[in-house]
C-alpha cells in the first residue's frame, strides 16, 4: 500500500497520521511533510503510526531527523504505535530509548513534557 499522510490539530498539538508503507521510496515524502509542518511553526508534533504496515531504516531516519529538529527548536515530538511488529523494530534498533512511544494519541498528548497536555 502507498504512503498516506493526513494532518489534524488537537489543541496545541499537530498530529500527523501516517499509513501504508514507509520505505526508501516513500520516506522522502514523509520528510517533506514533517519539514513543512515544522517550518510552518508546528512545535508539538505527534506522529501516529497506527496505520503503518511497513517501516524501514529510512523511515526511522526521517523520524529521528524530525525529533532532533524539534528538540533544538524547543518543541516536542512523540510517536503513537501499538503494533507489536513495529514496536519490535524500535526495540531492536534501541530507538525505543530515543522516542517517546505511546499506545494512543491521547496518551502521547497528555504525556507531553512541554506541558501543553490537552
Amino acid at each position, binding site marked *: 500500500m502507498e504512503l498516506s499522510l493526513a494532518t489534524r490539530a488537537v489543541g496545541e498539538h499537530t498530529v500527523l497520521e501516517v499509513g501504508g*508503507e514507509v*520505505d*526508501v*521510496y516513500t520516506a522522502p515524502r514523509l520528510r517533506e511533510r514533517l519539514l513543512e509542518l515544522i517550518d510552518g511553526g508546528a512545535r508539538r508534533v505527534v506522529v501516529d503510526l497506527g496505520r503503518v504496515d*511497513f517501516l*524501514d*531504516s*529510512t523511515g*526511522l*531516519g*526521517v523520524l*529521528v*531527523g524530525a*525529533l*532532533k529538529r524539534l528538540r*533544538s527548536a524547543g518543541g516536542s515530538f512523540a510517536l503513537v504505535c501499538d503494533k507489536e*511488529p513495529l514496536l519490535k*523494530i524500535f526495540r*531492536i*534498533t*534501541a*530507538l525505543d*530509548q*530515543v522516542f517517546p512511544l505511546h499506545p494512543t494519541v491521547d496518551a502521547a498528548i497528555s504525556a507531553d513534557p512541554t506541558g501543553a497536555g490537552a
Partner: protein
Amino acid sequence: MATVKLSFSPAPVHVRTARLVGVAVARRAGVREDLLDEVRLAIGEACTRAVALHRQYGLPDPVYVEMSDSGAYTVRVVDRAPIEAGIGLAALAPDELAQESLSEDALTTGVGFALLAGFVEDLQVRPVEEGVGTEVRMVWPVRR
C-alpha cells in the same frame, strides 16, 4: 530446488518489488508465516543498502537478488560497490542515535544493519567471489 533471480536498476522504487518477490518465494518455500514480516524487512534493508551504495558511487549496474529454497530459504543480495564501503556492521548506542552530529544517512545505515542483525539469525556480509562488491546472505529455516 527452486531458484528465483531478480536484478533491478538501483532505484528506490524497485526495492518494494524485491520485497514482494522475496516474501512470495519465501511463502512458497515453506518459511513460517510468523517469520514473513521479518523476511520482508530484512530483504528490504539489504536491497536499500545496495541501492544506496550504487547511488553513492554512481554505479548504474543492477542490484542482484537470488532466492533459493534448497534445504533452507536463502536470499543473496549483491551490490557492486567498492568493498571499503560495504562492510562495517556499525551498531549505534542509544545516546549516539539522537546526537546532533550524526547525519541522517549515517543513522539510517547503522539502523539498517541493526535491523538485519536483529531479524536474521543466519546472516553473512562478505565480499563477492568475483569482481568488486559485497554479498548479504540471509538464511531462514523452512518446514518440510
